[in-house]
């Protein structure tokens, strides 16, 4: 058990504060204690409470995204792989939770304690603030440290969810979970520290990524891309002459998933504001909500139109992908763009999604849910688009950020996938793939009574 007075949770931009707190702790925890009083409320504390509330509620909304990812993916795979897809999603949440606590959070927010300055943070485990904050002084313009940890954990899990959809229907459970462990403990947090943990992309290149267009979405997309390259396509997906569609088994579930992702995204982008302690932040939060929604809807509509024009009929799965593409694209900066620009960012994302899905398939890359198109392509687009409305961003900084994160995540992931492939094997056998992962790996069916004699 941890001593309560030990404060292990640290955070970007908090380095000075942390030094201060550590000093206090060394001095025997005799610092001013704002929160011990039982009085109704001290004005100085309200900002802290409101910031915390914003970040916790936003974290819960991102938990809806985890639910949304699971439903979307379970709706996109064929019936025979549904239970496995759900199992993978719960498994990744569990692994992300435990490893981000034990390892990842420390790497991501070294709070000034770098092994390699600005690049590799020192190892540490997340821990609690003491009860009632007794004996600890806090920064009233920030949320509670615990709220921050909870929120950041959900981001880490979201990155992992991106991967699970792309590699569905043929990967074994164990190597998948091993990769997720690596991703959430090491790959994701280290690259994220460069941008959000006061690392070199932030400090030296002025790279701007408000809520994770690159740090979360493109990063997840790169890991997914490496995965589908190493793994290969589903058996039967590509024949010499043509592409064999393997239609999504449950479009209501997929749509439910997309709706939950849409709702959760307001927390993803809104919570990234990290403050709600004054009028300006309240107005900014509203603005983030509006822009997030406009971009999402423009993405959906654009995909609808493009799908109609290119393929003669509207494809609901592409509309869902367009919606999500719009959400990804606005993530790198949902605050600065005007409403018209937000619409434009989303609409372009909707076009990009449909085009890149077709493009990837033509290259024999089998991404079951379109994760690479949605998260990588639109994440990059959105990160570039930051320069249109944010004066603090410049094209070079953005390009460096996109490139560095991409190179790091893709190459590490690629190596990891390759190692897994040649050690414990990534794929199920062709026969098991034919039967489906539910029966072959879990011995279970997701819908045992549908489409088969009731009593058999």
């Amino acid at each position, binding site marked *: 058990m941890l001593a309560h007075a030990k404060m292990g949770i640290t955070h970007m931009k908090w380095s000075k504060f942390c030094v201060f707190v550590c000093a206090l702790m060394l001095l025997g925890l005799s610092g001013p204690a704002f929160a011990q009083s039982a009085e109704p409320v001290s004005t100085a504390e309200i900002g802290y409470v409101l910031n915390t509330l914003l970040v916790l509620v936003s974290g819960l909304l991102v938990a809806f995204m985890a639910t949304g990812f699971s439903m979307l993916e379970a709706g996109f795979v064929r019936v025979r792989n549904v239970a496995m897809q759900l199992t993978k999603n719960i498994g990744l949440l569990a692994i992300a939770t435990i490893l981000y606590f034990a390892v990842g959070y420390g790497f991501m927010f070294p709070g000034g304690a770098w092994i390699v300055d600005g690049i590799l943070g020192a190892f540490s485990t997340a821990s609690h603030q003491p009860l009632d904050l007794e004996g600890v002084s806090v920064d009233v313009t920030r949320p509670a440290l615990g709220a921050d940890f909870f929120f950041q954990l959900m981001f880490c899990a979201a990155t992992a969810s991106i991967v699970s959809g792309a590699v569905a229907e043929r990967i074994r459970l164990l190597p998948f979970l091993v990769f997720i462990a690596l991703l959430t403990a090491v790959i994701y947090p280290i690259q994220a520290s460069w941008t959000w943990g006061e690392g070199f992309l932030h400090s030296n290149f002025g790279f701007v990524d408000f809520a994770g267009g690159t740090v979360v979405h493109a990063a997840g997309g790169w890991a997914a891309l490496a995965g589908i390259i190493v793994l290969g396509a589903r058996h039967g997906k590509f024949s010499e002459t043509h592409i064999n*569609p393997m239609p999504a088994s449950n479009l209501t579930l997929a749509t439910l998933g997309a709706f939950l992702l849409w709702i959760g995204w307001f927390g993803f982008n809104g919570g990234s504001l990290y403050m709600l302690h004054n009028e300006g932040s309240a107005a900014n939060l509203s603005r983030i909500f509006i822009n997030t929604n406009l971009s999402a809807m423009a993405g959906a509509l654009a995909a609808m139109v493009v799908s109609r024009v290119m*393929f003669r009929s509207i494809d609901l799965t592409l509309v869902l992908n367009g919606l999500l593409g719009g959400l990804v694209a606005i993530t790198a900066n949902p605050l600065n763009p005007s409403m018209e620009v937000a619409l434009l960012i989303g609409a372009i994302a909707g076009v990009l999604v449909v085009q890149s899905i077709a493009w990837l398939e033509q290259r024999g890359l089998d991404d079951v849910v379109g994760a690479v198109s949605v998260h990588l392509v639109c994440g990059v687009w959105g990160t570039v688009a930051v320069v249109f409305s944010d004066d603090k961003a410049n094209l070079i900084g953005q390009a460096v950020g996109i490139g560095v994160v991409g190179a790091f995540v893709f190459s590490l992931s690629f190596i990891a996938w390759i190692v897994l492939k040649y050690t414990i094997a990534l794929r199920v056998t062709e026969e098991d793939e034919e039967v489906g992962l539910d029966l072959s790996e879990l011995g279970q069916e997701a819908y045992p009574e549908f489409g088969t004699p009731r009593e058999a």
Partner: protein
Amino acid sequence: MKLIISVIKPFKLEEVRTALSGLGVQGLMVSEVKGFGRQSGHTEIYRGAEYTVNFVPKLKLEIVVSDDQVESVVDTIAKTAQTGKIGDGKIFVLNVEQALRVRTGERDNEAL
């Protein structure tokens, strides 16, 4: 007795069943089949990739009738199931050697 196997378009079921009831047919079985025939399937596009659905959903009716009913049953199905468009289906007649009603143990024509 004869077994009449008939493939029809799904939406014709109610009409055929009513007509057969009128003839005094007391029982039949319906099952869902995928039909492959001259009426080719349609092409669908999923996420930009075109594919042909070769099979068309049909219903298969199986009816066992006494020999003297065969003619009228076949005619009735042929008439009511017809739309004149391709894919209307087929009727096949096979010989049945025995029949038995499980509930009573009655046999052959009495079992129908």
